[in-house]
């Protein structure tokens, strides 16, 4: 097994990978930007080295420096996590050239899947259905895109060729608004990925985003670990993921067909290591290949929770050259898992990011709750990186049990110092379409409102008012005592009393 692994990432996913290494008895090396000197991943690792200033391009995107550090500290492998360098074929190739094992697929697989248009052409050739669009057409000019659009039909989506995470995406309802939207999509794609190329894709209405977790070794064995339902999104950013998908719950034949196709798609690029095949499923249960993520996914814990497989440990094992630890028929699913991404953003205020220092954090514990996080009391949410504070994953024997468990875990979770989207998740867990599993990718933006949460808030306005008043009063009395006449005693003392309920 590897002796030492360098983790080329930060935050919760760096901590996640460090934990897997520790459990496998492998020494770990963290790298960090100036903003992250106190970060959990730095403190958790066996060794830690500074990469550079806080902006990602001067630190976590510096593949050259990372390879240099890996050499100096005699690491034998690099785990890229997700984001940053995880889907950069050039970095994977540079690692290989430098004699380091890149814990992920071959550079050629990343390339094949990295250009969305090429990816779609590749899997289409392998017999996998793709969403109608300009896949395989190469880089198109504006006039070519405008000419193509009516053939696909409206509504459609403009997507960045090198895109991901909702960047450089625009929904188009008609031809008139299209030129402006192409421009803004290109600008955003250019600034986000250094590549302004875009393509068009049919907007599948009432669509669900359902993805399959793939695991493959270097001997050609490819299995899937079942699906994740990721349709709860806002601006194409996933917010809640679950496994199994409530849409597939009573349709085992569809699940099996999709699993087979997912494995096919992975085989089409000679895939090794962990990857994810994303599908769109329309309301008539047709499914289309969307893209492949050639890396560990943010939401991998829901799959770990229902299958019991440690995906990160398995990534490391297959990267070292071991065979997959399980065959397809050994994969068993148990119960239901839901993940809520806890972000530093204010759901009452247009989901604006909230930066600042986390002064206190008290995660929920108890049965069926898992927290993956990189933050701690004292952590500064900086504008340099994404606003993910933590991922909360719950497990239940049934989906309903998972939902109620998530409710209680959300209520227990205390984060003080920044605004979080916990009230959004609380509202979602009380929303009829979510509770019944009947939602699509447009649900959050088009049908969801925070009104329920506001109502819940109103229930406790009086208690909030009372609590603040009493605290203010006690503190004022205390000040009066400290700064007021010496020897004067507070007449105020709260003591225990009990009686019937106030409601």
């Amino acid at each position, binding site marked *: 097994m590897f002796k030492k692994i360098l983790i080329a990432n930060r935050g919760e996913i760096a901590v996640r990978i460090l934990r897997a290494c520790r459990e496998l008895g492998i020494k770990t090396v963290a790298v960090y930007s100036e903003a992250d000197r106190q970060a959990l991943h730095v403190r958790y690792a066996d060794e830690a080295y500074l990469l550079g200033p806080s902006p990602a391009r001067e630190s976590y995107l510096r593949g050259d420096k990372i390879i240099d550090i890996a050499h100096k500290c005699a690491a034998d492998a690099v785990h890229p996590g997700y984001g940053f360098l995880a889907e950069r074929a050039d970095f994977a190739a540079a690692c290989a050239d430098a004699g380091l094992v890149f814990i992920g697929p071959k550079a050629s697989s990343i390339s094949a899947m990295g250009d969305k248009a090429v990816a779609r052409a590749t899997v289409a050739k392998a017999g996998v259905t793709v969403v109608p669009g300009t896949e395989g057409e190469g880089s198109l000019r504006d006039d070519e895109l405008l000419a193509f659009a009516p053939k696909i039909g409206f509504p459609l989506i403009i997507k960045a060729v090198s895109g991901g995470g909702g960047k450089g995406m625009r929904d188009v309802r008609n031809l008139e608004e299209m030129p402006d939207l192409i421009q803004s999509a290109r600008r955003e794609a250019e600034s986000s990925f250094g590549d302004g190329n875009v393509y068009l894709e049919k907007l599948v209405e009432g669509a669900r985003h359902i993805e399959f977790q793939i695991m493959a070794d270097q001997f050609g064995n490819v299995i899937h670990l079942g699906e994740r339902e990721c349709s709860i999104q806002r601006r194409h950013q996933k917010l809640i993921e679950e496994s199994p998908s409530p849409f597939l719950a009573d349709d085992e034949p569809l699940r099996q067909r999709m699993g087979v196709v997912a494995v096919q798609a992975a085989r089409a690029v000679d895939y090794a290591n962990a990857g994810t095949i994303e599908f769109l499923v329309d309301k008539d249960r047709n499914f289309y290949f969307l893209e492949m993520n050639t890396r560990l996914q943010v939401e991998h814990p829901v799959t770990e929770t229902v299958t019991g497989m440690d995906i990160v440990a398995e990534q490391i094992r297959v990267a070292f050259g071991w065979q997959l630890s399980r065959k397809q028929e050994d994969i068993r699913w148990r119960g239901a898992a839901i993940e809520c991404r806890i972000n530093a953003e204010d759901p009452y205020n247009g989901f604006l990011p909230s930066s600042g220092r986390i002064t206190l954090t008290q995660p929920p514990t108890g049965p069926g709750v898992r927290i993956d996080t990189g933050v701690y009391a004292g952590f500064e949410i900086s504008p340099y990186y994404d606003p993910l504070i933590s991922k909360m994953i719950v497990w239940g024997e049934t989906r309903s049990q998972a939902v109620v468990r998530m409710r209680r875990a959300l209520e227990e979770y205390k984060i003080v110092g920044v605004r979080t989207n916990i009230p959004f998740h609380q509202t979602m867990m009380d929303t009829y379409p979510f509770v019944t599993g009947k939602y699509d990718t447009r649900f959050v933006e088009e049908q969801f409102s925070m009104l329920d949460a506001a109502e*819940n808030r109103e229930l406790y306005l009086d208690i909030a008012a*009372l609590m603040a008043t009493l605290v203010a009063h006690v503190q004022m009395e205390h000040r009066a005592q400290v700064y007021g006449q010496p020897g004067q005693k507070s007449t105020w003392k709260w003591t225990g009393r009990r009686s019937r309920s106030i409601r």
Partner: protein
Amino acid sequence: MKYIAEVDSLEFPVEILDEHHIRFGKEILEVDLAAVSGQPLYSLIVNGESFEGYVYPDEGGWQVLLLGCSYSVNIEDEREKKLRAPEASFASPGREFTLKAPMPGLAVAVPVREGQQVEKGQILVILESMKMQNELRAPYAGSVARLRIKAGESVQQKQILLNLVASVPTNTSF
């Protein structure tokens, strides 16, 4: 001692009667507040009902984190409130709103000019931060009074970006 607590523009009068009792609106409640050591964390038992909350001062008022939700509470003692009573309330015409940057970032677009009339919900500034473009919108209809940034400028958290003077409603129903 009498206080008035304001949350979500609702007012709650609280009168402290003795160590165990308060008058809350018209009700007399038995209360027991305990601080959990070393933290701004409080346990409040009101007539037997138990609540836990983080309470900490914030920008002149108090923040209360209760059952997953955050509340901003302003507290005044009754006399102070009386003196201030004739003042205009928040969203009334002529009231000025100060748009501050909610986080550090880059102002990628400022699609309004000084003096411009804007509708409620209209985009005032687009701020890029945490790898996202964030739209800062008008909380109510009004005119842009003092525009203090240009597109392309970096801003600090809580930096004042512009002021907005509320319009006199044009279609008041009465």
